[in-house]
């Protein structure tokens, strides 16, 4: 079975949902014409990234009664979509979120788990912390979504793996930093390296959609990638510019890789649980 996978490596307008929705529709139309099955947009693709006090004014509800999601759900009838947005829950907490939409329905909404508040980041000041790591079923297989800082931590991808995810959809609005002699920024090198490592260690597809453009002095470096279960690079979008990438991935690669390398079969989850319990009980380290 093949999956035609598309990545929308877009720039966004900061705080203008209407303008960003328009761009989504252009990319969706194009992806549909090119026969894509699934189109992934980056983190906060409908709003822009450094939202600060804009946050409450651009929040959405991922349901058919929401004007923006009504449009996106309609679009998702013949192409699956992952979109980034601010989710306002019933208690008026705001979450950095990515939603998986398919056949007119919201299949899953992930709330960002880790909100960085170090260096240039200040997410924890404006957003609530997500508290659920769960894989979900799609018409192509079981997937999991993580957003940027979530996958700088090893545990959320690991949990998704145990929960059955064979496809890791990672979305980012990753500010570029760390210029040295290398042809890419340190942050870009780091993200690509860990994504490849996850593909290898979890013998899974790792799909990363990152945005481009600038917000004040911050640059977003793009360079979206897909790695296959062998850890091989399937595609890499150019860095520092908007780009539409589409690639066909062969889902049978999961069978072939795991027949050769049964890391999932041999994973000792009972041991993990036992040792984790022991470690957590012994909190003084």
């Amino acid at each position: 079975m093949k999956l035609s996978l598309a990545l929308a490596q877009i720039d966004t307008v900061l705080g203008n949902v209407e303008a960003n929705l328009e761009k989504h529709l252009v990319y969706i139309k194009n992806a549909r014409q090119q026969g894509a099955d699934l189109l992934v947009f980056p983190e906060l693709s409908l709003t822009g990234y450094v939202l600060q006090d804009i946050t409450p004014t651009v929040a959405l509800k991922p349901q058919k009664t929401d004007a923006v999601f009504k449009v996106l759900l309609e679009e998702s009838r013949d192409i699956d979509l992952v979109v980034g947005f601010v989710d306002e829950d019933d208690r008026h907490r705001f979450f950095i979120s990515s939603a998986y939409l398919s056949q007119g329905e919201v299949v899953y909404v992930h709330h960002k788990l880790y909100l960085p508040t170090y260096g240039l980041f200040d997410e924890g000041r404006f957003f609530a912390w997500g508290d659920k790591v769960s894989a979900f079923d799609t018409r192509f297989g079981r997937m999991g979504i993580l957003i940027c800082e979530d996958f700088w931590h090893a545990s959320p991808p690991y949990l998704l793996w145990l929960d059955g995810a064979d496809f890791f959809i990672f979305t980012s609005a990753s500010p570029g930093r760390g210029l040295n002699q290398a042809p890419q920024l340190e942050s870009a090198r780091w993200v690509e390296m860990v994504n490849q490592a996850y593909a290898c260690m979890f013998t899974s597809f790792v799909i990363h959609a990152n945005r481009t453009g600038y917000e004040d002095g911050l640059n977003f470096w793009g360079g979206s990638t897909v790695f296959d279960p062998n850890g091989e690079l399937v595609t890499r979008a150019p860095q520092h510019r908007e780009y539409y990438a589409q690639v066909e991935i062969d889902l049978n690669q999961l069978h072939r890789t795991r027949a050769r390398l049964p890391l999932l079969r041999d994973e000792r989850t009972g041991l993990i649980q036992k040792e984790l319990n022991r470690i957590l009980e012994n909190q003084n380290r």
Partner: protein
Amino acid sequence: MNALSVDLSINTELARTILTGFIRSEITRAGFSRAVIGLSGGLDSVLACTLATEALGTENVLAVRMPYKTSNPDSLSHAQIVIDKLGIKSLTIPITEIVQPLMDRYPSASQIRQGNMMARARMIVLYDQSEEFHGLVVGTSNKTEILLGYSTQYGDSACALNPLGDLYKTQIRQLASAMDIPSEIIQKPPSADLWVGQTDEGELGFSYHDVDQLLYLMVDQRYSPQDCIEAGFSKDFVDNVVRRIQRSHYKRVMPPIAKLSNRTIGYDFLYLRDWGT
């Protein structure tokens, strides 16, 4: 670690891509397409002009030369070389008649005061041309001088956007070489040219080569002052630079607003400048 081995070199192609993209983005999203740059003929302003030209096109960059009567004639001619090479628009607006009445009023004013008068007069001229040319003022301050506070507040540091402020002087030189800037401009001693014979390194009392290595360790690599001394820098040098950074911090932040209400600009009224664009 040997302090002399600190490597500040950068990938110039990547820097060029990010900085030209930054100039284009920050100018066009503000509703403009043009840049105004004070071109002294020194390396920083030459590099800023070169990057802006690459980002916006020759017809969209205005280089303004603003000599004072004591300015080094080499500055004008170096600026001319760059204007001709890039093919950008240019103006020469001497500031002598603007600052002279104030200087004559205070004939015993220190060199610092006179230098500040010149730097702020240039700011007035530049912002006036910004309105006339419908372009934003592109700043030329580098990371070294911003950290050391080696600038005139609301003078040469005034700008709408700054593409060079995260590059040390050493890195500016490297990027300039890669962008084919004439070697005589890269190699001449850096000078604010506010009085005859002034050079940055003479006035600061240390070389850019040395201070860039120290700043890189302290700021970028988060070395403590003690770590820097252990890395081979002299205690006096380290203390001097630490003091300079602290004492000049007021130049790097917006003036504090006294908080009274529940929501105060600067504290809890938080938006990027690019808000809505």
